[in-house]
C-alpha cells in the first residue's frame, strides 16, 4: 500500500508540473502576441509608401527613426557655405529610374546630401543620403528613384543640398520627366 501511495504521489507531481509549464507557456504566448515580441514580432506595421518608406501609419515615437533626428531648422535658416562647391554629375531618366549623382569639392569628410526634385504642379520628391568620401571629394549618390514617383510629366528642378557643420552648399539642375 505504501509503495502504491508513493507511485501515485510522484505521478501527481509530474502532472502538476506539466500543468504549470503549460500555463506559463500559454501566458507567455498571450503576452508575446499582445506585445508583438518574439515569436510574433514579424507582423510589423505597414508603411505609408509616400514618405520615403520612413514614416509609419501607427508608429510610436520609439518606432520612428526620425524623432531624434528631425531637423528643427528649415532650409532657409541654414547659412550657405560659399567655399564648398557642389557639382551635379548625373541627372538622367532611363529604364524607369531617375539617377542622380553629385560631387562636393571638400576635403572635410562626411556630411549629408539632401536631394529634392520640385515642380510647381506636383509634390516634391526627396531623398537623403550620407555623403561618402573619395580622396578630397565627397560623393552624393548615386541615388535612384523610380520614375513613377514623378506623377507630373514635364520639367522638374533637382536641388542638391549638401549639409556639413551646420552650413549648406547647393546646386540645381533641370530634368524633363517623361
Amino acid at each position, binding site marked *: 500500500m505504501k509503495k502504491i501511495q508513493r507511485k501515485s504521489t510522484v505521478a501527481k507531481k509530474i502532472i*502538476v508540473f506539466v500543468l504549470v509549464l503549460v500555463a506559463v507557456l*500559454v501566458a507567455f504566448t498571450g503576452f508575446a*502576441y499582445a506585445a508583438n515580441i518574439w515569436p510574433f514580432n514579424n507582423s510589423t506595421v*505597414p508603411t505609408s*509608401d509616400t514618405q520615403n518608406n520612413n*514614416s509609419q*501609419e501607427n508608429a510610436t515615437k520609439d518606432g520612428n527613426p526620425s524623432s531624434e533626428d528631425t531637423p528643427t531648422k528649415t532650409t532657409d535658416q541654414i547659412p550657405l557655405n560659399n567655399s564648398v562647391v557642389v557639382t551635379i554629375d548625373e541627372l538622367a531618366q532611363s529604364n524607369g529610374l531617375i539617377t542622380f549623382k553629385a560631387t562636393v569639392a571638400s576635403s572635410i569628410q562626411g556630411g549629408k546630401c539632401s536631394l529634392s526634385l520640385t515642380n510647381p504642379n506636383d509634390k516634391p520628391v526627396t531623398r*537623403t543620403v550620407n555623403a561618402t568620401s573619395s580622396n578630397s571629394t565627397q560623393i552624393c549618390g548615386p541615388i535612384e528613384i*523610380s520614375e*513613377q514617383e514623378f506623377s507630373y510629366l514635364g520639367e522638374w528642378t533637382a536641388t542638391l543640398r549638401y549639409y556639413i557643420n551646420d552650413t549648406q552648399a547647393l546646386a540645381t539642375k533641370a530634368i524633363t520627366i517623361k
Partner: protein
Amino acid sequence: MINLAVKTKKLPRFFISGAIVALLIGFVCLVTIKSNTLTPQLNATASAANWNPGRIIDDNLFYDNKDMSLQEIQTFLNQKVTNCDTNGTQKYNSSMTNAQYAASQGWAAPAYVCLKDYYQVPRGDQNINNLSTNVIPAGAISAAAIIKNAADTYNVSPRVLLVLLQKESRNLLNDNWPLPAQYRNPMGFGCPDTAPCDPVYEGFYNQMTNAARQFKLYKTNAASYRYKSQQYNAISYQANNPSCGSSNVFIENQATAGLYNYTPYQPNQAALNNLYGTGDGCSAYGNRNFWRIFSDWFGGTTGPDYAWQVSSQELYSDPAMTITADTGALAPDKDYYFKIQVINNGNRTWKSDDANPILLGTTAPYNRTSELCNSTWISCNRPAKLNEASVGPGQTGTFQFKAKIPRTGNFSEYFSLVAEGRTWLNDFGFNWQLNALPPTAKWQAIYQEIYSDSARTKPVNINALSPSTTYYASVFAKNSGNTVWSNYGINPVLLATSSPIDRSSAFFNSSWINTNRAALLKENSVQPGQMGTFEFSLTTPSNVGLYNEYFRPVAEGSTWMNDVGMYWPLSVSTPTSQWSVVSQYVYTNSTKSQLYNTDATANKSRAFISIKARNTGNTIWKNSGTNPTRLGTNSPVDRASEFYDSSWVAQDRPATLKESTIAPGEIGTFEFWVNAPYKPNGSVINESFRPVVEGLVWMNDVGMYQQFKFNSPSTSWDYVGQGTYSDSNFKTAIDTSLAVSRNTDYYLVLKLKNTGGEIWKNSTFTLGTSNPVDRASVFFDNSWPNINRAALLKEASVAPGQIGTFEFKIKTPSTVNDYNEYFRPVIEGSAWLTDIGLHWSFKVR
C-alpha cells in the same frame, strides 16, 4: 505520512494556483496590451475581397468638401484623443512619465499639444503655432479649421484629408503626447525626414494646404499627370524593388488616379491578405491603407453605379411652369405640367440618348400603365426622358411631362428612374398624390385698398371720407379654385356686392356695371393659383355715417365664389378742410440749395419760400378745378402782401398747391417767391399765410407766419434823373451838350431813389463833389454849403423806397474849356453812397 500527505495535497494547490494566476496574467496582458491595436478593427468594414485597384474611392466621396462641417471635424479629432497628456505626466512605463521618457531620449519637453488642441496662424511663409508653449498665437486657427479651409478651398473631402493625415503622419491623430516634430510633415508632402525642409512645405498648415491643392491639380490638369482615369495604367507593387513587378490597372475615376499620382503603388496580394498588417517584401501599403482607413471610419469608399434622390417636385397649371397647381384641388380634363429635379447620386454619368438612356418610369408596379398617359409621353409607362444630354455624379437632372387628370378623384402616381435596357434605379416610392375635384370657383382676398387718386398712388383714411366724393378702389384676389377666371365669355368674373348678395351699393357710380356689380376682372384670364385684379371707383354718399361695404367675386351666370367676408368699413364724415404746418423754409433760389437769411432781409431782394402742409381734414386738396387749394395771405385774410411777387396768383394768393391732389393725412407743398419791400433797417415784418379752398372755405388758422428782419446797406441808391435849367424855377431846360456861357449862373436838379436801409435826412444828406471826393469845384456858388458840397437834400427826410431831390445853383468858370463835373451823395459823418459816375458835362465858351 501525514506530512507527506499534506505536502502532496499542498503542492498541487500551489502549482494549480500558480498556473491559474499565470493564465490570468497572460489573458489580462493579451486583453490590455492588444486592446489599443485591436480597437480600429472593431468597427472595420473593409474586406480585402472588396479591394478594387481601379476604383479605390468614388469621385463623389473624394471631392465632397461638404461631407464634414468644421464642428464635425473638431469632434472627430476630439474623439481620437480623449485624454491628452499635455504636461507629459502620464506614465510611459512603470518607472517613467512621458516627459521623463522624452528627456531620456533627448526629445522635446512638454507642453505636448494634441492635434485637437493645435492652433496655427494660417500663413504659408511662417510657422507660428502653439506647439511647446500651448499658448494660442494671435490670428491662429485650429487644426480642424485648417483642414476645413483646405477642403473648401480645393474642393476635397475633409474625410479624405483626415484619412490622408492618418496614413501619412506619425500617429498624429491618435497620439496623446505628440512631439513638435510630428507636426513637421504630417501629410508626407515634400519634407525629407532627416534633412531640413523647405519652409514652404513645413508645418501642419503648409502640409494640409499643399496636399489638398495637389489633389485639385490632379483633377483640373489630369492630362499632365502620369496616372489617368478611364484608361489602363501600369502600377507597381513596390517602390524600391522593381523586380516586384506591376500590373495594368484600369483606373475608373479621377479620385483613384489622384491617389496613384500621390502614392504611385498598389498593394500586392500579400498586403491584402493581411489587411491590418504587413505583407511581404513586395508589399506597399499607402493606397491600401487609405482605402481601409476610409472604409473603417466612414463606411465604404464606393457607392452604387446608379442612384438618385429628388431635389424638387413641382406641378404647374401653365406651360411656362410659373403657376404652381394645388395637387389637392386639380380640375379634371385640364393640362398640368409636371417637373422633377433629381440628383445623380450614383457613379455613372446619366445620358439622355445613349444605349441606356435615363427615363422616368412608372412604378408600383413597375411599368404600370398610367391613367395620365397622353401622346406627349414616350409610352404609357415612360412619361419623360432626361432633359439634359448628360448629368454627371452629383449633378442635377430634370424630367418634365404634361398630363391631364382624366376624371375627378384621387390618383397616386408612382415613378422611379430607369436606365433603359439596363436597370431600374433605387425605388424609394417617389410619387404624386393628385386629387381632381369638380370645377370650383374659389378666391382669396389678398389685398384691398382705397385711394384718393385714379393712379392709385395715395391711399386714403377710410375712417374719414368726405361725402359725395369719388375715390378709387383696388382688390387683388387669388384664384384658389381649379377653374380659370376670365373677363369675357358667358361667365365673366365680376366683383359684386354681397351681404346680402346683389345688394345695391350706396357707393355706386356710373363707372360701375350696375348698382351691385362694381368691376369686371381686369385681366383677360387668371389661372388657378394666379392673382386677379378688380379696380373701380366709388362715390361716397352725401349722408355721413359708417357703411360696411361687402364684396365677393361672381362668375356671372354660373356661380358665386366663396364668401371670405371681404369688406371695407367706410366712414363718411362732414367735410373738414384742415391743415398743420410740417415745415417752412426760405431759400435764396428755387432749387432750394441755399437758405435765405431772413434776419438780414435786404430791400427788394427775392426769396423762395417752401411750406409743407399736412392735410388733417377729410377732404382731398386739389390744385385745379373750381375749388383749388391755395395759400392765401392771412392776418387779415386776403391781405395785399407787401412781399407780392409777379409770380403770385394774386396780391393775396402766393401759391397754388403744388401736387395735383393731397389726400387726408398726406403732405402737400406750397412754394413761391417773395419780393421784399423797402424797409428801414431794423424793421420786422411777420408775413402770415393760411391755405384756402378757393371759393369754399379758409382752412384753420394755425398762426403760421414768416418773419423778415430788414437790414440793407446804407450806401445804395438808384439814379432817377437830372436836369440843367437857366432859371431858378427850373422851367427852362438847357441842353448841356451845347455850349454854355462863361461866368453864368445855371440851376441843376438831381432826383434819386433811396434803396438803402437808412432814412435820408436833409440835415446830413448832401451832394458832394467826387472824382475825387471832396474836390473843390470850379462851379462853386456861394449858395453851396461848402466848396465841395453842392446841396442839401431838398426834402426833410426820404425813407427807403422814396425819391429825394437835390437842387442847386452853379456858376460857370471864366476859363473856356470842356468840363465834366462829378457828384456823389454822402451821409455826412457816416458814408459816401455808391459811386455811379454821376456828372454834368459843360462846354464853357
